[in-house]
């Protein structure tokens, strides 16, 4: 699992994840993901278009950071997950807490609360 910081500005944190977000993946990027997302307290866009697999530890990581962001009034949105990953986000109920967008414009609208 790899994490790339796409953008960090005063209004937005945009990261891109790639690979498997399983037990090992969460160990590899968990700390950096937390520091970059909930640590910055900005609206956060998580591009998951290159994430091939998502397990509960990965969902827990997203959830924990989203919850921490929510405490400061900021949102997290997941961008363009692959079909099986999206299905996992839907069936787990995560989508009720962390919206899914399929393009950047939609993601930015969701982050602004529209």
């Amino acid at each position, binding site marked *: 699992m790899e994490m790339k910081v796409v953008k960090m500005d005063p209004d937005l944190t945009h990261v891109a994840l790639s690979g498997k977000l399983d037990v090992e993946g969460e160990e590899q990027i968990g700390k950096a993901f937390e520091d970059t997302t909930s640590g910055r307290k900005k609206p956060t866009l998580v591009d998951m278009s290159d994430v091939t697999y998502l397990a509960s530890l990965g969902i827990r990581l997203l959830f924990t950071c989203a919850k921490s962001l929510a405490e400061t009034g900021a949102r997290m949105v997941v961008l363009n997950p692959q079909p*099986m990953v999206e299905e996992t986000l839907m069936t787990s109920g995560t989508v009720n807490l962390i919206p899914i967008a399929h393009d950047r414009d939609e993601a930015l609208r969701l982050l602004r609360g529209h």
Partner: protein
Amino acid sequence: MTKELLLTMEGTRGHVARAISQAMVFLESHALPPRSLYQVNLALEEILTNIVRHGCQEGTTNEIHVRVELKSAEVIIECVDDCCEFNPLDAAPPDFDSPLLECEPGGLGIHLVKEATSSMEYCRDQGRNVLRVRVDVPTE
């Protein structure tokens, strides 16, 4: 025709990854469709991670026996462990209906197993937990 993989692993995190890898290699060699592979991977990871995190005791070498059986229209996963008694069917589902600030993610792994599989059976037998789940394999 039935095909089967049998594994015995220690109840540690490192062995979970190895067991999953072996199971995936076995199933990929039998041309399991990608969706079914994903579901088996997810179910096996969540089951084994749950056993290691919540069932295995520190300082004790717990053993987990894994059987992956490939039938014509389903994969059967059976995990037998000698850890403390735990019936995953009794676990409460995660509460993601409450507002984000009130939610807790407990029970998520078992919930994912239930969603990825067509059935889940548990029994306690001679001091061991026996969990069996089935993943459907679409037939063309």
